[in-house]
């Protein structure tokens, strides 16, 4: 347990030294600037426009910043033979993996809190709190996915591509399903097979399109049941990614 805490702490120190807080502040400043610009061109719903665009932008920033940080940090450590060094100490592979993950998850939670705060300018505190909690859980999932891919693939570009691909696909899969099941589609065998493929793909993806919704900031928070179900779904997927990551790391020859 102590080794997990020490590893998590080292990740937080690395994040601070690698300029992550400045990137977060820069993102907030950019979001506020974008909101200010849009408020000048909108002729109605200017407050809603500012809230919606800032929230969407900050959500994308949180995911992108965390994903690149996790991948570059993990790959750099692997290239520097840092994994071998740590594992030569009395630290198990599971403790190493979970320690790193805890550190990345804390970074994600801090980013979510930092990005939720400016939204209080335009949206009620309750809705912002739910949005922030949802973003924090979403970043936990992204951290777990980034760590899994970077440990498995060992290179920056393929790891970022795989994580971003998973994330973006999870965000659009329900729209793709709706398109595939559209009433104008011809009921041919090829089309049905494509539809089954999309449905099968949806089974192994998290419902990220339903998470951290901008609608909550504009039209009110979701019900407790709906929110709970959503968080449970994201939580289960995060646990699945952690299990897959540990499985892969345990059986690897170093």
């Amino acid at each position, binding site marked *: 347990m102590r080794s997990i805490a020490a590893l998590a702490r080292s990740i937080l120190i690395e994040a601070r030294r690698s300029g992550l807080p400045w990137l977060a502040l820069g993102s907030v400043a950019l979001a506020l600037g974008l909101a200010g610009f849009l408020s000048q061109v909108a*002729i*109605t719903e*200017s407050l809603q*426009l500012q809230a919606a665009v800032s929230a969407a932008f900050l*959500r994308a920033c949180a995911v992108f910043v965390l994903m690149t940080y996790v991948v570059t940090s993990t790959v750099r450590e692997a290239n520097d033979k840092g994994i071998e060094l740590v594992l030569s100490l009395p630290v198990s592979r599971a403790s190493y993996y979970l320690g790193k993950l805890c550190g990345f998850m804390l970074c994600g939670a801090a980013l979510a809190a930092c990005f939720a705060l400016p939204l209080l300018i335009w949206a009620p505190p309750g809705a912002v709190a739910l949005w922030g909690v949802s973003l924090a859980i979403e970043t936990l999932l992204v951290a777990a996915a980034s760590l899994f891919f970077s440990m498995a693939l060992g290179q920056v570009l393929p790891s970022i591509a795989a994580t971003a691909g998973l994330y973006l696909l999870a965000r659009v899969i329900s*729209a793709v399903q709706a*398109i595939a099941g559209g009433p104008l589609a011809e009921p041919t065998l090829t089309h049905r097979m494509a539809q089954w493929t999309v449905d099968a793909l949806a089974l192994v993806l998290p419902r990220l399109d339903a998470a951290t*919704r*901008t609608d909550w900031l504009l*039209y009110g928070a979701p019900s407790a049941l709906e929110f709970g179900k959503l968080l449970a779904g994201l939580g289960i997927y995060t646990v699945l990614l952690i299990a897959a990551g540990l499985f892969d790391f345990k059986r690897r020859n170093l």
Partner: protein
Amino acid sequence: MSARERPLSAVPGWLWAFLAASLAAQLTLQAVPSAHRNAVENLPPAPGPLTLRLASFGETAAAARLAMIYVQSFDLRAGNDIPFRRLNYTRLLAWLRTILATDPRSQYPLFAAARVYAEIPDPVKVREVLRFIHQEFLAEPNRRWQWLAQAALIAKYRLHDLPLALRYATALQRDTTTENVPLWAKHMVVFMLEDMNELQAAKIMLGGLLVRGDIRDPAERRFLQNQLDKLEQRRQQAPAGEGQKR
């Protein structure tokens, strides 16, 4: 210059020329004014609601509003409202339909339809916009009643089509079921038959909305106040013009 850099003289002459030429080409290309008229006429065909949802990666509320800003940019340039007439209204209304389908709770498309795109001196296009507002009102009467009320006013005072205005007023009265609809809107038929001018009618409607707190957005307040001022100016100028004719 840091210690890690070599002096500028280390850069060969041909590279200086290459950099200057490419910069000049970029500046020249960007300095040529874009063909404004073409941009106004070429509002591209609207995407389907599912396409917009797909492109937004699930951020439908933000995408709908950004799409409105995009559509708006085809006609609100330099505050000039003459190009409204040149817009392809079939495409424009398709865009508004898509945006409304992407975020049905947004009032932006109907606001723009009633307050911007219906404000042109082309009765055919105005009727198209009013038909759009009526259709969308029928989908959600309790949330979209104020746009049909505005459509009724436009039908009476701009198109001078009292039967159409009464049809909208009757629909408003018949289809709204919520307590939220004010009395003047519930009795829109009587309101339409009253002998009053456009300014008085607009003042009653906007005044009512402002007093009830229905208009809270600062940009919308500014826009509506500006519209009221323009209307008042037009009313003041009208008798003077008639006097000159005589």
